[in-house]
């Protein structure tokens, strides 16, 4: 509880500091919006060309897309410092987290909040909303399903966060991690915007094990849409999130001990 209160206090200080650079904030908000539109236009173009992918209709894929975007954007909003973690290693600023009487991860996360990334969550939600409304009207899903899906997207945030945390931890040894994030975090998240069944077997295996983005949306949604799986597919998401968080955080604690710092 005390940790949460302190986190809130530190985060609001970080936001106050950010607001010193309002123009910077607005410009990056603008560019983020453009990037997101391009991304969405790409998906729309694919979907208009092929109304169905691997037996999934445009609205069904819209759900995957929406959940994936919500999960990733919430993670990006809450943990920008993980995404850019290697700077802490290269510049040795991780020192200043270790001298505080709190868990380093908490102090790290409290240093920044990237509110402009919420735009992505909003876009994801809009696509999700349109898609679910269509399926609701068709009687394919009920309101409970919609609420469960939103809950799953929130759980997905934890999965994305865990993958990113584990990736950032590598920086303790190799001094770099930002490039790795592209490989372990962004590529899999982008893949999760499509039904897992379109990918070759090895990639399916990878995306549902070491880089378990399939649990953010595909595995439970497949069950909710009556496309296979069992109730366990639904339960697997929170279970996967718990395992991911535990493993990633233990790995982080282990990595912390191998921090090298920099000369003076």
């Amino acid at each position: 509880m005390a940790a949460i209160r302190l986190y809130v206090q530190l985060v609001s200080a970080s936001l106050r500091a950010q607001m010193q650079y309002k123009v910077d904030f607005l410009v990056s908000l603008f560019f983020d919006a453009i990037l997101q539109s391009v991304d969405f236009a790409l998906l729309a173009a694919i979907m208009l060309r092929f109304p169905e992918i691997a037996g999934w209709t445009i609205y069904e894929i819209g759900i995957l897309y929406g959940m994936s975007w919500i999960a990733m954007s919430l993670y990006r909003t809450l943990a920008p410092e993980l995404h850019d973690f290697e700077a802490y290693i290269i510049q040795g600023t991780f020192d200043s987290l270790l001298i505080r009487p709190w868990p380093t991860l908490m102090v790290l996360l409290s240093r920044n909040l990237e509110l402009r990334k919420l735009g992505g969550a909003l876009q994801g939600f809009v696509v999700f909303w349109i898609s679910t409304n269509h399926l609701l009207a068709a009687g394919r899903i009920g309101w409970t399903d919609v609420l469960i899906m939103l809950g799953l997207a929130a759980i997905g945030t934890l999965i994305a966060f865990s993958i990113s945390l584990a990736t950032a931890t590598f920086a303790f040894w190799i001094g770099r991690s930002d490039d790795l994030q592209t490989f372990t975090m962004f590529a899999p998240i982008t893949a999760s915007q499509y039904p897992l069944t379109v990918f070759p077997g090895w990639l399916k295996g990878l995306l549902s094990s070491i880089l378990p983005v399939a649990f953010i949306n595909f595995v439970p949604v497949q069950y909710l849409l009556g496309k296979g799986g069992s109730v366990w597919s639904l339960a697997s998401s929170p279970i996967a999130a718990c395992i991911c968080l535990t493993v990633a955080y233990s790995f982080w604690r282990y990595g912390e001990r191998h921090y090298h710092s920099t000369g003076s």
Partner: protein
Amino acid sequence: MQPTIETKNVTKRFRVAKARQGFWNTVRGLFSNEGRDIVAVDDISFTIEEGSFVGYLGPNGAGKSTTIKMMTGILHPTSGEIRVAGMSPQHNRKEVARRMGVVFGQRTQLWWDLPVRDSLELLAAMYRVSGPDLQRSMRTFDETLEIGPFLDVPVRKLSLGQRMRADLAAALLHRPSVVFLDEPTIGLDVVAKSGIRRFLREINRKEGVTILLTTHDMDDIEQLCSRVIVINHGRLVFDGDIDHLRTSLGAPTLLTVEYATAPASSPIGPWNVVEQAGAVVTVAFDRTACTAGEVIARLSQFGELRDVHMSEPNIETVIERMYTG
């Protein structure tokens, strides 16, 4: 007196890996063992009692910062044991962090874009300092460090001297019993330096705060430290008080004498003639080998002495000798 800081056979070896650019090189870096080993700190042991003011010296790259980083829980020693306030900074990092204060002169611990006051308030929350205690501390720091005038100025707009004072206040806000100061006077002017020294002396004497200080400024050492620990190439080369440091090294004491008339030849004795300009002769001698009295007596055999002036070896020369020796 309780030992506040204890290091026992502490060694730190680094494996220096190559940092890489680009995606594939990063991936390759994961699997490569390329790199070299360096021993930054080599089997160092010392004990520092409560209330001491210790100078920790050594040339650049000697392992000073590495030792401080191990004592503050930032780095883990490869072997050996460290205790700060009775606990291991590695295994009880958070408990030790609560009891210590740290100032890295080269890097501020304050929130760069926020006013000093905000930083102090955030740190108070972080260290569970109560509201009234915070107010009291701020008043005290205003008297001792004169931080009042810039409490509402963002840290990035402070001068270096102001920033250092604010950093000291920030490090001491939670009343730590041990304080690590890594080059706290670096880059400051004479006035700012003496202000900071006065403050450090006061918290050490009045509040019994144990202070470990690294510096390249020999005046810091001479004016503040009752004890000096010197390391070079990662090894402990000296541990004792300043006078002892001077004498143990046999660093030369300089004696300048003025004769009534210039001596006919260069005076010969247990000394080296450093300079001879007419009637004024400067000799360097080793105080562990003979006393100043003897030297004066012997010098007076070469002519009538009009004036005598003696100067102790400057710590800087002493340390220099030690580093190069």
